[in-house]
């Protein structure tokens, strides 16, 4: 039976080539837009380099103190992360790093803009950076305040040129010479919590990381639990610790700070009343609705027109006893078939567009790709799209009166 529908569908598609073209164009472009969007979100949300143990991690990005007329917020101090977050019992390790900031280095009459980040030794154990050569600096080196650095692949290329190994060589940044201890694979800037060009021990930081005894400073932290099961406990423990924290000043009466999972930490806006996830989802939802609503309406329009053309066929089938259900079923199958064809075209289109985006390098180190997740989400959107645009026309078709349908021709 399905094979029959399939043959009919192909015959119908061939009959009015212009309409088939319009339908395929509409479907494939809509799906392409959605697929590129999915690929982008998937890259940002699901790419777990360098935090491969993401399901065991909680991220602490900011703290906000609020009072009647005062508000103060931002990233945390090294002191807070070692003394308060560091004294929690559930986390086995606390990675501490400064938020990345920029400096320059000048070599051979060339200026290189460098982003640097100070880290502790746990940082390299909590996160799994891919070392292309060398290794991270260890606890001893940090304690000694050695001038050692881990640099990114890009910086290596830019600073040293195309040489095979740079471990042990010196790189100058911020007017200080650092010995290269390792080279890691690039992290895209969209992963702003872990992105940097050069990673340095916190002890060589020029700011007095130890003397700042307030809560706020330039650092962020990542808590690692012993296992996945401990994460809720760790979250709970952190919230409790925050609720017991004394206010830093009389103007304030509330302190907010959260140990978040990657996604909710990533989109945290600093607005405590509204969750960042809700805002991000609403924005994406509106965009998807907009992108899908018009093409769907358009397809419904075209489909309604197309079935009217087939009113005689429908009339005859109904006269010979086909139920409305069968007809609706047939039409939806035809429509899904068309959508899937559009889906195939859209995969080709998306690959082309992604290739273009990647090679143009709009965002450094961000390589978008179609993977299994993206493809399955796309397939799902195809099905939803096909159903959305097929159901109403099919319903109208099935309600056609036999007499009118036959008379019209």
């Amino acid at each position, binding site marked *: 039976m399905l094979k029959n529908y399939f043959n009919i569908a192909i015959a119908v598609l061939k009959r009015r080539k*212009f309409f088939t073209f319009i339908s395929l164009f509409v479907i494939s472009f809509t799906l392409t837009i959605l697929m590129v969007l999915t690929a982008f979100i998937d890259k940002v949300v699901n790419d777990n380099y360098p935090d491969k143990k993401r399901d065991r991690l909680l991220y602490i990005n900011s703290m906000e103190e609020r009072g009647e007329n005062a508000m103060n917020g931002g990233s945390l101090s090294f002191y807070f992360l070692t003394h308060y977050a560091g004294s929690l019992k559930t986390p086995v390790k606390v990675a501490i790093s400064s938020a990345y900031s920029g400096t320059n280095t000048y070599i051979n009459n060339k200026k290189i803009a460098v982003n*640097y980040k100070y880290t502790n030794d746990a940082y390299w154990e909590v996160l799994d950076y891919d070392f292309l050569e060398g290794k991270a600096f260890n606890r001893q080196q940090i304690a000694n305040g050695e001038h050692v650095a881990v640099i990114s692949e890009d910086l290596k290329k830019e600073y040293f040129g195309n040489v095979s190994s740079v471990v042990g060589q010196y790189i100058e940044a*911020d007017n200080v010479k650092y010995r290269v201890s390792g080279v890691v694979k690039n992290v895209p800037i969209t992963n702003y919590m872990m992105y940097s060009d050069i990673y340095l021990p916190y002890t060589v930081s020029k700011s*007095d990381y130890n003397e700042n005894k307030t809560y706020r400073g330039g650092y962020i932290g990542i808590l690692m639990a012993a296992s996945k099961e401990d994460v809720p406990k760790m979250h709970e423990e952190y919230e409790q610790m925050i609720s017991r924290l004394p206010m830093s000043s009389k103007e304030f009466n509330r302190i907010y700070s959260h140990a978040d999972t990657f996604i909710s930490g990533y989109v945290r806006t600093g607005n405590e009343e509204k969750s960042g996830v809700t805002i991000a989802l609403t924005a994406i939802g509106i965009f998807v609705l907009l*992108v899908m609503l018009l093409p769907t309406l358009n397809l419904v329009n075209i489909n309604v027109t197309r079935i009217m053309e087939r009113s005689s066929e429908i009339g005859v089938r109904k006269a010979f006893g086909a139920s409305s259900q069968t007809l609706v079923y047939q039409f939806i199958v035809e429509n899904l078939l068309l959508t899937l064809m559009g889906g195939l075209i859209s995969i080709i289109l998306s690959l082309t567009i992604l290739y273009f985006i990647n090679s143009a390098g709009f965002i450094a180190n961000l390589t978008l790709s179609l993977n299994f997740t993206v493809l399955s989400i796309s397939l799902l959107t195809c099905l939803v799209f096909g159903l959305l645009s097929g159901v109403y026309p099919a319903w109208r078709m099935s309600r056609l009166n036999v007499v009118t349908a036959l008379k019209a021709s």
Partner: protein
Amino acid sequence: MFNHLLRLMWNKKKQNFLLMTEMFISFLVLFAVFTLMVYNYNNYKKSMGFEYENVWVVNYNNNMNSNNTDSVLLFYETLRQTVKSLPKVKDISFTSENVPFSSNSIQVGTEYNKKQLSHINLLRVEDSYKNVLQLKILEGRWFNRQDIAPKHKPFVINQTLKEELFGNENAIGKLIGGDSKSEVIGVVEDMKIKGDYISAGRAMYERIDTGSYRWLGRMLVSVTPDADIAFEGKLYKTITNIMKNGNIEIEHLANKRKESNYFALVPMIVLLIVAGFLIINVALGLFGVLWYNINRRRGEIGLRRAIGATGNSVSGQLVAEALILASFAIIAGTFFAVQFPLLNVFDLPRGVYLTAIILAVFFIYLLVLICSLYPGKQAAAIYPAIALHEE
């Protein structure tokens, strides 16, 4: 004629309703896109208000151990003199972190005559700021040495803020603010500090007092056009040698401008591509449906031709039908669109919304006209004999 057409359309209300909904949503999409474009273009047209070529920004975070204001001042004075004495440096000025084209903002509120305004960019500046960025003074004067210990704290405001606070009155000498009054001493031309495409907004300038130097983090340096990378390296070395405990980064305002424009343009380009695709989509659909309808109405059209209707009147009828449909969609769309200026959503000037509505109306009519002209022409070419023969 008009009533007649309406009745014809009413008879096919279901199909027409779908078409109308499609046009209605297209109208809203176009309205949104045009609003954004008109707004960006309006901002782009205005002058930048300051000079960004050959101005560099030095970002520093100086970790000074001293709590003594005098020694801090002495330190920055030494830094200033050393940098100023470099050959290619024209002038320098310390300022707060909201330098042009940065993402940092410092915003405050003020009031005058019980009129309260918020979201005013506060720029902390020195006397030399005006020369470094070559600001244009429209009224009054810029800060100078007289302002060290005034009775009221002096402020320079920008044109937008002046117009919103005082309208056409003279602003100079007026006292603004709540309990602690400050005096307006000058009005400068708007500076588009967030980039070419973003409006300047309200701004006021405050003279840095001696106690707040330790909290600053930016230095603007205007250089001669021949200052190159080698010189930049030298400047960098000079500053790091003085600021031993600091992290330093030098950026060029011209590059920062490109960057901030990029961030304003990319979303707009993506939106334009998506909207463009949606419109092509709608146009094709509309075209297809109209074209198909004509094929279904061959008998009717043939008969009209047979009893003497000209080709033009036949195609005119089809085009008019499509345009009436579009008018309904536009009326419904405009009803929603005018809510934006009426309720003052998003705080944009009304003119922007109105221009966008006019453009969207025009564009929808154009689209429908183009999509219905060809089917209309085809209809006009129907020969009565052939059309009626099929019947």
